[in-house]
């Protein structure tokens, strides 16, 4: 992260923290915000966030490491989360998982080299009557089949500017 970028993000962090009167109840909303724009919460950001809330950086790290939608490692521009819970499993999640790995050329838990996609399993998405289900960022996809996987992935890959803007906060 460039120093100027860190300063910019730090200003945003402080602005948001102020909205919560620097009260700790604003910590997770701020972390969600940073995760959303930087696709991870870097050690530098954790320092800046800790400073804003006047808590120890380890407290911040403890929170980040607890929640599955917050991450210290940088995620892809699109995070694909396939439901691994029993109903989706019985509906054929394994074949979908296999095809996701084929289309993206990575295994679960990995991010593509171009920083576009991260592939993860997640627990119940609440779409058990329409499985297999997966989230791509905040979008839900249901009744996913191995044949549909390529189209879904392409629809994100081809989003306007997706290839241009990726890595903007690198």
């Amino acid at each position, binding site marked *: 992260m460039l120093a100027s970028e860190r300063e910019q993000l730090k200003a945003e962090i402080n602005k948001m923290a102020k909205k919560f009167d620097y009260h700790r109840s604003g910590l997770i909303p701020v972390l969600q915000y940073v995760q959303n724009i930087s696709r991870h919460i870097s050690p530098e950001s954790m320092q800046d966030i800790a400073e804003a809330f006047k808590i120890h950086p380890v407290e911040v790290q403890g929170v980040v490491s607890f*929640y599955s*939608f917050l991450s210290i490692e940088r995620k892809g521009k699109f995070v694909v989360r396939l439901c691994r819970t029993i109903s989706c499993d019985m509906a054929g999640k394994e074949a979908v998982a296999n095809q996701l790995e084929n289309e993206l050329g990575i295994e679960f838990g990995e991010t593509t080299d171009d920083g576009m996609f991260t592939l993860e399993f997640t627990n119940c998405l609440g779409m058990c009557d329409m499985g297999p289900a997966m989230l791509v960022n905040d979008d839900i996809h249901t009744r996913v089949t191995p044949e549909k996987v390529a189209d879904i992935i392409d629809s994100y890959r081809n989003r306007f500017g997706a290839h241009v803007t990726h890595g903007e906060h690198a």
Partner: protein
Amino acid sequence: MSKTEKKLVIFSDLDVEKALKNALQKSRPDIIGEVRDSGLKGRGGAGFPTAVKWNLAAAAQGERKFVICNADEGEPGTFKDRVLLTDYADQLIAGMVLAAYAIGSKDGIIYLRAEYTYLRKDLEATIEKMRGKKMLGKRILGKDGFEFDVHIHMGSGAYICGEETALIESLEGHRGEPRNRPPFPVTVGYLGCPTSVNNVETFITALHIVEKGAKWFKTFGTEKSTGSKLFSVSGDCEKPGVYELPMGITIKKLLETVGGEDAKAVQVGGASGTCVPRKDFDRAIAYEDVSTGGSIIVFGQQRDMLQVAINFMEFFCEESCGQCTPCRLGTETLLEGLDLLDEGKCSLKHLRELCSLGETMQLSSKCGLGQSAPNAFLSIVENFKSEIFDTRCSCR
């Protein structure tokens, strides 16, 4: 959205504005009294009497009080709150207003799970619409001195935050680790203030009860489990979906309704619930028999029940918050045992030790997650032991 033909309670017609207006004419004790008479118990799964919770929060001393909607629906196989949040959001918010009026709160929070972020926009639009109709904000529906508003707080992906004290920890910006109880949230909750945390379905059901009466509500269900319940049905059946059915319905009858008569077993209550084998399908779904927050997962004849147990135990290993030892280490040890069983390398002596460990976890874990994590393991091992041993052999 519902596949139920008969409209019982939640899916019965309701004029939300009229219902709220009528409720605000009543006194606070009358509202809590009506809910008490109805026998309504928490619909999230724990089954705590709603009126008792509200009464304690109403009686508690505090400058501020909070009404929190637990929309952190994460139990495997549960999706009824998703349907309610999508199609009945106005009833939910009116139900929160009702609770706020009953306990004397001005602040409401909807804790929405991260996985449901796509519902947020519509939910916010509904909140805004209800502000416009004076069902939120100051002087609600002309009621002097009564103000209440709600905002949405997003979860960040943690099953344990469905536990009410973990949810409060999370709201306060901490790891979602359950608190010691007592004190209970009704006296010391969010920011140390009296707080009532209720499930989405509970708020909506309470609104219907106060409008239509406890007597009417009790025409459905059993003596100890009054009213109806939403069931999220998935797995090997012809018509998966959300059903509203009377409490006390037998598993057999439920399976007939959803087209799953051939089932080998049914998981009632999700990963933390119980696996009921075919021979017990006459059992009733109710607080006094097989209890559930609504999750019904149907297993057809072809399913390998050991794989089901492994899937559930992997879930608990991931979602255990790690705070207390019985749960953190117990879930891992049970999963190792299941893997041994899968390889055909588990002695009966070891299996008995694992079952005993499961019982220890039920007794000694700090919160509901650890206490219920062994349920699926124990019920599957008990009911399908011969299937497990007959189909596994390490020498093959």
